[in-house]
């Protein structure tokens, strides 16, 4: 099985290819089309002890985030990927689309209560504009825009409780 991994966290936008030729022991893997030697043992559900070339070892744990991202904790670092299988990857190349995530939506990254809404429909925002204030764990958390654009809708009101992943506002990105 071959995957194209698109990095969505650190190193965002980077893309690499991994093919698992055989998932049973011994592992056969091709990384960016080059054969590579690894040994992976499952130590708990979603947790692996992985040995790479030259004895390099790390524990890796894989979680699927609410938006489908694969988050891997490995050796104290964190990597986020989107995996596209062969068909999807080919389709993306053909259409030039950016994958399945709606980049124009602002979603709650934590559960909490909306304290204040600082923008309204039609407002122009730039990266860093404060959008609203969420209260969680006894602290106020200002949610800021990560990019420029125009507010298409504000989907919450002060006092409203929100869960992780709830849409807070929608944007029309610039250009």
């Amino acid at each position, binding site marked *: 099985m071959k995957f194209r*991994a698109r990095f969505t966290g*650190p190193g965002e936008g980077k893309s690499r290819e991994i093919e698992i030729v055989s998932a049973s022991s011994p592992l056969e893997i091709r990384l960016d089309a080059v054969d590579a030697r690894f040994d992976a043992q499952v130590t708990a559900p979603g947790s692996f002890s992985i040995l*790479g070339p030259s004895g390099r070892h790390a524990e*890796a744990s*894989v979680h699927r985030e609410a938006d489908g991202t694969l988050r*891997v904790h490995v050796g104290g*670092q964190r990597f986020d990927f989107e995996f596209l299988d062969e068909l999807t990857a080919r389709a993306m190349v053909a259409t030039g689309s950016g994958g399945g995530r709606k980049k124009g939506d602002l979603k709650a990254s934590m559960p909490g209560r909306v304290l204040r809404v600082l923008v309204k429909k039609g407002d122009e925002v730039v990266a860093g504009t404060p959008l609203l204030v969420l209260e969680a764990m006894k602290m106020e958390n200002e949610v800021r825009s990560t990019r420029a654009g125009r507010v298409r809708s504000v989907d919450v009101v002060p006092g409203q409780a929100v869960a992780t992943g709830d849409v807070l506002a929608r944007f029309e990105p610039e250009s």
Partner: protein
Amino acid sequence: MKPRLLVANRGEIAIRIVRACRDLGLEPVVVFSEADRTALHVRLADVAIPIGPAPARESYLVGAKLLAAAKQTGCTYVHPGFGFLSENAPFAQAVVDAGLVWVGPHPASIEAMGSKTTSRARMQAAGVPIVPGMTTPASGPEELIAFGRAHGFPLLLKASAGGGGKGMRIVRGEGEVAQAFERARGEARSFFADESVYAELYVESSRHIEVQVLGDTTGRVVALGERECSLQRRHQKVLEECPSAAVTPEIRAAMQDVAVAAARAVDYVSAGTVEFLLAPDGRFYFLEMNTRIQVEHPVTEMVYGVDLVTEMIAIAMGRPLSCGDASPRGHAVECRIYAEDPAQGFAPSPGKILRLRWPGGPGIRVDAGVEAGDVVPLDYDPMLAKIIAWGGNRDEALARMRRALAETRIEGIETSIPFFLALLSDPDVVLNRISTQFLDTWRFEPGAPDVALEDLALVAAALAEIESVRRSRGAGNGPGAPSSRPSTSSWRSARMPFGMRE
């Protein structure tokens, strides 16, 4: 039957008190809100009493419920921990009035130190240095200039009715006074509807240094060195050390004397902390006194070889101080591990802890409030644990802390560990070039990704994905079925481990 002590708190500090009771041969009784029915402090308890709904104001902050729990279980002592009702003089008085023993200072001592202005006046009367400042509003620029000439610049203009940093203004020389006075008055008027302003000496690059004191019922009061608490984010301490590498033996001796004098001035009994602002020139000024055990007390314990919580309880039993002659050895550092995501502006990250490994081995102490499988509730402070590292000197303590943090694994929620790993590698922190302003400008940058680790991560992700596909086709009934099933909890749906064959 063993004497019983009511632990009027939750989480990590409740567990700390439970351990102290057991070390002393007392039986601890814990309390819990509905959100904490299966919290670790309850799981570790032999006696546990429910005190109401999740919101603290309906449970942990309701003195009457705590007193009822103490009565119901035959407790003799009440230990408040920190936060909640720990510095609430009326509650301390109510405990005493109910015929129970309050593990802490006299209610009158709490009261005396409770108000910032009253306590400063009282401390000044006792000869304790406080930051030079005007005690009445400034009549005009001339009075500010006269104050500046007497005490030096820069000055800090403050609104008399103010707070929270609003309306504050730094004045670096006489030429800036007139304009700054007008602007500060304007801001004071608009924020607080009161245009009075006054000036204090502004101490630049200052440190937050605090002295641990202990008093017993025989009237003996001792100081057990200082703690360095300058690394603060949003006025919240994040990393503490004992001793402070900025404090010379002379400063330490002087500071300890002042701290003991401050404690004596309010007839202090039990453990308390006198906070100082330390200027780069070695002068120091009283800020306030915390009339309770501090979050960061373990660094003092490791360096002085004492147990402050058992000492508090023993003092409450009427015993004389047992650690008055303790002397320091080595260096300790504490990191407060919070459920927050440093890569997302320290946004809270409550939820279920799917995997957890605390560090161990030489020089490492962990005071944790959670275990694997626990859900960190939204209702309370997001501190998960304190990791404390001791070493023969500061460099060794910092190296051990870096090792301990790298060894720690917390998954399912984000934590402040990556922040601490970066902070503890910063040359300014390593070389002790810090002040209370340090973290205002310091920015967390996750380390550059390690290419070899990236390869390992890709392999893990691909194997997990294959298993996931295989499972969704096989409907999950084979031997490789998920051993942890999805549930309807939002935590779980947000962070779902892959079900892999073991």
